[in-house]
């Protein structure tokens, strides 16, 4: 199963290496990782998607906690939360296929953000399923390049994940 962890870390040099190193040395699989600032100065938030059984994820969480620069770890998969990822897709778009692509993009509430004589860049946001679906539909036009941000997530409602409760 996939688990999405919100990890609050001190914004210190090497903290990303420490987290990534922990995963590789203990044989845990990172699906993706997204890092950015928080409302508290000096604290960054990592959103890490890991694949593994309950016991493995429990070990991941405990081992992350042991890193001195890690302040808090919560498993957002245990709770109602909003998860999003942004993807940019560069797809072949000859004049004849543009309207078909446009339609797909609209259905997925995506955006065309760049057009050139033979290609388009499309921006989509959403969850995993939506990403896979649009990829599938655009496949036959020929996808030239893809880039994804990795998942980010927040708890639903007014509760927040912060450094001290």
């Amino acid at each position: 199963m996939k688990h999405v962890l919100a990890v609050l870390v001190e914004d210190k040099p090497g903290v990303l290496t420490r987290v990534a190193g922990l995963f590789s040395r203990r044989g845990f699989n990172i699906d993706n990782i997204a890092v950015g600032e928080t409302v508290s100065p000096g604290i960054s938030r990592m959103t890490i998607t890991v694949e593994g059984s309950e016991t493995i994820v429990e070990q991941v969480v405990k081992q992350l906690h042991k890193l001195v620069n890690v302040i808090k770890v919560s498993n957002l998969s245990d709770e109602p939360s909003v998860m999003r990822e942004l993807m940019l897709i560069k797809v072949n778009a000859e004049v004849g296929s543009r309207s078909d692509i446009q339609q797909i993009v609209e259905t997925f509430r995506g955006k065309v953000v760049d057009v050139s004589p033979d290609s388009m860049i499309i921006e989509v946001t959403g969850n995993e399923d939506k990403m896979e679906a649009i990829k599938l539909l655009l496949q036959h036009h020929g996808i030239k390049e893809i880039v994804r941000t990795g998942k980010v997530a927040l708890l639903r409602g007014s509760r927040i994940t912060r450094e001290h409760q």
Partner: protein
Amino acid sequence: MKKKMTKGSAMILSALQKEGVDTIFGYPGGAVLPLYDSLYDSPLRHVLVRHEQAAVHAADGYARVTGKPGVVFATSGPGATNLVTGIANAYMDSVPLVLITGQVPSSFIGTDAFQEADITGITLPVTKHNYLVKNAKQLPSILSEAFYLASTGRRGPVLIDVPKDVFDQEAHFEYSVECEIPGYNPTYNGHAGQISRAIKAIRDANKPVIFGGGGLIRSGASDALKELAEKARIPVILSLMGLGAYPGDRDLFLGMPGMHGSITANYALSEADLIVATGVRFDDRVTGKLDSFANNARIVHIDIDPAEIGKNVKIDVPIVGDVKTVLEAILKKLHPGDTTGWLEQIENWQQQNPMPGAFKGTGSTVKPQYVIRELSRLCGDNSVVATDVGQHQMWTAQHFIIREPQTFITSGGLGTMGYGFPASIGAKIAAPGKRVVCITGDGSFQMNIQELATAVNNRLDITIAIINNSYLGMVRQWQDIFYDKRYAHPLLEGNPDFVRLAEAFGAKGMRARNEQEATEAIEQAIGEKGPVVIDFVVEPEENVYPMVAPNRPINDIIIGGDRS
């Protein structure tokens, strides 16, 4: 008024003094010259080793005997990389260390400068934490954090890498031993509800055992352990790292479990209905095949490190906390159960499976186990034993009676050949009033033999007992048992004459080839001043038994050996 300014290097030395450090194990070089220059005027004792690896092992031995962090200085590049084995060793055995390395000047970092090595990168997976200092202003808080991290929670090594220019930078120095780190809050008091469940489990158990490890020693839980065992009449099993936490000669002590553990300890763990695991981490050398481990038992696991609980073995009552604090809480409300029948059963196992043989040589020869038993008998109380890694280590664990915590020093988790001798140097410096014995192998000793110079130079009274079988004995044993006696390179042909070698270093050398010579040599050596090397030429092809093959259930035991 202008604030008084202090140089980085001077800050480091003042901080060490404020932290109660008295001894530094180190080796100088270009990048730490400013630090050594400040040391010139400092009252701190500096022990010059002959290889940086030995500095870490010596500091580690010092830390295991005193419980205080050991301190190491080394230069950048090769000095720093030479530390790595020692750091990994300390990390695996949770030993508190603070290591200070020099680094190339800040402006050169990242340019492959002369003697540059990314030591914070290299040691990331084997330190509890590490720091690369950017400027002298950071030094007071980093030093204070380093000592705090090394010596609290689950102990471990912390490394501070200091660029050469930072030693010379001046900044305001204000030092506080207390510190707070937002992401670091070890739990010391166990959860009250879980403690009640543990008390109930002990009351209800008919066949309980206590299984303790190095955590007992680090937390100073020996007295609490004795009280628990003796009040509730529960037998005690100790891992290699735990030896000494309970006196090795008391009736309730069943020995070490696992691969070379006692038969009774392995049977007891397999048959128990309750295991009270304290400060242990269920290493594979202890559990054998995991699916078959302790299938009949409920397990209470007390440990300071939450990540150890449930890592290898499923736990029924998890208690995160300091082992001593938790055991004391349990003792307050202890209801002993009835263990009479169980103790009788254990007594039967003990009688049916005594340690094999009397270990008699042929008259002209001596067996390694005999030597270790004689060392144990003659060195007796008030001694600290350090071992290296191999057969001699297992024989020491089996036959040397360890009565007190912090008196048995061995490389458990990493199994580092070359650890024992430098660790014994650290131990002797830490406890000059104790008799220090290093039991080493002819292979292991040669991995840090250069430290004879350090021992001679510091006039350290250490008895170095080489169990000389002319083999990498433990390797030969595995090839004997699992590889059809195809002895691929365990023979130590070309070993030096250890007696003359000792003498060349200015130490005393002796040789013993039979039982009588062995006893006489030990008697003579323990009265000597300075380091004494005894070369015990033992029967070469003796194996360590009992033995559980790797990944077999621990009650599937190869009894082996001479049962006379």
